């Protein structure tokens, strides 16, 4: 039960003082894990578990544009913890923030080099023959490019979470580049990186009123320690951007945004072409109806572009963050994703079921 009005004001005064003094810092990413492989900025973590019931490990690949703790936000509100408790062997491919030495990293560096190496390291560490490869947000693009160009890799299933495909649907941020108002060189700094502050400004520009709304939300949550911790964890993450390698940024603008190559199904890569129709593995495309960062119309075309006979679309009634954290994620999003992976990790027969599926947000409706 919520405390009385007076008690709430006193709690607000106490927590507000602590917040203003910088004494409240949510303790994020607490699920126990071990570093099992590293290369340049790539870090492969394996989450400790006493009860791994599924043979095919899950390799979560995090986006290059944010920090990975959104996937392991707080105990009880963590994608990683949920999947682990469902009996999966969970690995996370995380990226250290890019430095000047990474400025020349291209999409190939990630899709054709670091991700394949991480898949091999995952199989070696887990003693598994195949992995379920999951890409979150921009990492979804990378894992799709990996799967489209590397038939030889032991990828059993492919899952993309809120992954942009049609860049014309991304709104203000891409329109600034799409129509040539800005060029990559206008935002790349002298060390060859897009600074974190510019990435942050870009994301803030999607919802310019958000900062004012967040102040109100902060006031609403300030009296409760638990609510305040969740609020700060999510909001700190939303502003906690990382620098982006300049070379990959140029490719993103020229190929993905201006040529809208993902939407055509053919992306120039490594001197050749990555054709999405060459992806034959079971595929799950998860996106969110209320997502303002990657709107549903941007992510939705992916299911029709891959060549998999077992391609499933799952549209959830949440926003970008609500897919992996929060009450809706706990009740609907995470169980539906885990259910699809479980069914497709069971045996070969279920993994090659025929026909395309569409699901609209009920838990478990994305069954293949």
């Amino acid at each position, binding site marked *: 039960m919520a405390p009385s009005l007076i008690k709430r004001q006193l709690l607000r005064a106490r927590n507000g003082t602590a917040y203003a003094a910088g004494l409240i810092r949510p303790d994020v990413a607490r699920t126990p894990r071990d570093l099992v492989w590293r290369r*340049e900025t790539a870090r492969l973590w394996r989450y400790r578990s006493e009860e791994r019931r599924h043979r095919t490990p899950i390799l979560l690949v995090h986006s290059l544009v944010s920090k990975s703790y959104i996937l392991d936000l707080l105990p009880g509100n963590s994608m990683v913890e949920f999947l682990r408790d469902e009996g999966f062997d969970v690995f996370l491919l995380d990226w250290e923030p890019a*430095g*000047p*030495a990474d*400025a*020349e990293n291209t999409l190939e560096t990630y899709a054709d080099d670091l991700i394949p190496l991480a898949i091999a390291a995952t199989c070696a560490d887990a003693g598994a023959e195949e992995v379920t490869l999951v890409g979150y947000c921009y990492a979804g693009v990378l894992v799709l490019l990996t799967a489209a160009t590397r038939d030889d890799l032991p990828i059993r299933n492919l899952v993309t979470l809120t992954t942009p495909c049609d860049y014309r649907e991304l*709104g*203000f941020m891409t*329109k*600034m580049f799409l*129509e040539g*108002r*800005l060029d990559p060189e*206008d935002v790349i700094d*002298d*060390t*060859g990186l897009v600074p974190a502050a510019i990435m942050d400004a870009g994301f803030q*520009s999607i919802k*310019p009123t958000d900062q004012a709304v967040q102040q109100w939300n902060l006031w609403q949550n300030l009296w409760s320690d638990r609510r305040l911790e969740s609020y700060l964890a999510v909001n700190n993450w939303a502003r906690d951007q990382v620098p982006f390698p300049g070379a990959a940024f140029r490719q993103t603008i020229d190929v993905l945004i201006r040529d809208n190559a993902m939407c055509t199904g053919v992306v120039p890569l490594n001197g050749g072409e990555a054709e999405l129709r060459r992806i034959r593995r079971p595929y799950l495309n998860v996106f969110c109806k209320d997502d303002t960062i990657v709107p549903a119309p941007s992510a939705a075309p992916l299911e029709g572009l891959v060549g998999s006979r077992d391609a499933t679309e799952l549209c959830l009634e949440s926003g970008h963050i609500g897919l992996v954290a929060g009450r809706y994620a706990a009740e609907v999003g995470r169980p539906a994703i885990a259910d699809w992976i479980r069914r497709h990790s069971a045996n070969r027969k279920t993994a090659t079921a025929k026909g395309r599926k569409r699901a609209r947000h009920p838990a478990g409706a994305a069954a293949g």
Partner: protein
Amino acid sequence: MLERDAFMDVLALTWKVQRGAVRRVGSAASRGLRLLGVSTRADTVELVNQVAGLQREVRALRRELETR
């Protein structure tokens, strides 16, 4: 409002003018400071980029060793 052409044009132009102005002022300040024998931000950036280039060479050599 945000996605109106005129607004985006003005925003992009403002950004470019601001960035150009900062660069020109920085460049002029660097020339002045160099005359006084003081190291500048441009010198630091150059050094950072040299170190980054070396790091990339080390990475390339490591990869070459691994493939042998």
